[in-house]
């Protein structure tokens, strides 16, 4: 239950502004891929095109193809709602639904589109998803309490539980640890390693150590200057990117000599 993503000649626009230019990348199923690069280089924007979330921002559009096991996400007649139920997303700041209990948060995506689920199935799915997000033991006694009462790290794991409950093919993570303390960060990184056995994971991070710790392959994005589009500079095995990159800009960035 996980699919590969192939991106071909993708340009991302906000109205007329070209934000990301000409990206070609192949993301293997059941692997962790990290996107690194300086702020504003378009890595988050590019990540959001992988499940059509960038369309939420007015004027957002793309040219090119994003293929999920060969199926183009941007073919006419493809419903973004279907795309997003197959390709889940975890955001920078934890965003559990504040008016829902922990349990309802986990089930939020499952109950969408008029789907019904029996009480016993729901209970076991909640437990399975929360276990999958390493959160079960911390919240099993307060499943009916609001999700907003948890700590930041717990909230983020709740959001991951909510995402995996839908059984997506791919999970996109947009700087999932940037609002968390080091211990919570470690918990999420451990979790990402476990998620790899079932899902394709793509993670955007500002933290190069994190990219080195969690990912199999790493993509380095850069930008020539403000107002210029972001580009994919180099994409290779994580070990190669950090020890022996082919491009000078990548080496400067991963070794801290940039700008």
């Amino acid at each position, binding site marked *: 239950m996980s699919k590969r993503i192939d991106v071909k000649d993708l340009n991302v626009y906000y109205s007329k502004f070209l934000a990301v230019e000409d990206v070609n990348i192949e993301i293997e199923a059941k692997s962790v891929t990290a996107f690194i690069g300086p702020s504003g280089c378009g890595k988050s924007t590019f990540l959001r095109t992988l*499940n059509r*979330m960038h369309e*939420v921002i*007015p004027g957002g559009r793309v040219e090119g193809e994003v293929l999920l096991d060969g199926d183009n996400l941007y073919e006419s007649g493809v419903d973004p*709602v*279907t795309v*997003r*139920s*197959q390709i*889940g*997303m975890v*955001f920078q*700041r934890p*965003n*559990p*639904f*504040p*008016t*829902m*209990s922990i349990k309802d948060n986990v089930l*939020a*995506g499952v109950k*969408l*589109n008029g789907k019904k689920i029996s009480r016993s199935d729901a209970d076991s799915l909640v437990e399975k998803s929360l276990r999958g997000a390493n959160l079960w033991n911390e919240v099993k006694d307060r499943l009916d309490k*609001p999700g*907003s*009462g948890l700590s930041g790290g717990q909230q983020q794991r709740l*959001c991951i539980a*909510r*995402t995996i409950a*839908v059984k997506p093919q791919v999970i996109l993570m947009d700087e999932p640890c940037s609002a968390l303390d080091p211990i919570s960060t470690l918990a999420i990184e451990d979790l990402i390693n476990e998620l790899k056995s079932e899902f394709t994971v793509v993670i955007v991070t500002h933290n190069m150590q994190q990219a080195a710790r969690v990912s199999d392959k790493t993509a380095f994005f850069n930008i020539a200057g403000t107002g210029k589009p972001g580009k994919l500079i180099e994409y290779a095995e994580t070990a190669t990117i950090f020890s022996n990159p082919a491009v000078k800009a990548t080496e400067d960035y991963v070794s801290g000599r940039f700008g």
Partner: protein
Amino acid sequence: MTTNALRRNGSKGQAGDKIFSGAALGAGILILATLLAVAIFLFIQALPTFTADPTLVSGGEGFLAYIFPIVIGTVIAAAIALLIATPVGIAVALFISHYAPRRLAAGLGYVIDLLAAIPSVIYGAWGYLVLAPALVPSFQWLAENLGFIPVFAGPASQTGKTILTAGIVLAVMVLPIITSLSREIFLQTPKLHEEAALALGATRWEMITMSVLPFARPGIISAVMLGLGRALGETMAVALVLSTGGLIPSLIKSGNQTIAAEIALNFPEAFGLRLAELIAAGLVLFVITLVVNLIARAIIARHKEFSGAN
């Protein structure tokens, strides 16, 4: 002598702080004092009604028998107004905030706000001259086909000047209040929560029910309460539109009366006990509004834990 460097030294910033907190406190007290003064005024002026010989009160059966029908009339008119205006207002607000293209949304919002600026006497005239005659055929249809339900019992009014017409006019009047307040709150829904719903594969409507409406719930209740306040207290439109009479269950016959219109229509010629009666009616209206607001507060407070404020 030791001096503590951390002690206050009367600087300008502190003076500003004190002035502001004093002004804020004063404003708060002023509101309470005004409310109390109104309550005391109403109570003292209304007192003769409660002690008077019941046979001397309008209707000849005491104050309760006098006030009861017009309290019910007031509640019926306000309820009709809210039943119509709440769903329509929320739907229009959602359309403006989440469905309409931007330019249309801005224009539409502006027009809705303009509706609130129309004086109530104009609404009354419109209800009297346009809406009431236009509704007569519908009332007749209701009487013929749904007449077995007491609220639609015939024969229908030939002029259309009924409590249902008054309720519809009130609905149009409270619509802009509910719409513009709801729209403001819908627009404040955190992007984060909307994106959370969309990223799970929610349709736009599901996103609205999952993140926008729960977030806006207390605000919607406040908006409806403000609308209710206007519907309960509205005088001119009801006075012009409604052909008054005793309390009857049918909404499509002449009859019923609201407190505000009762006061306005009779006040100029009232003196002595009649004046006290009308003021007592005002006191009752005041209490109804207060109770309704307290209930609304309680509803909002009950869901505090899940409000997202923590």
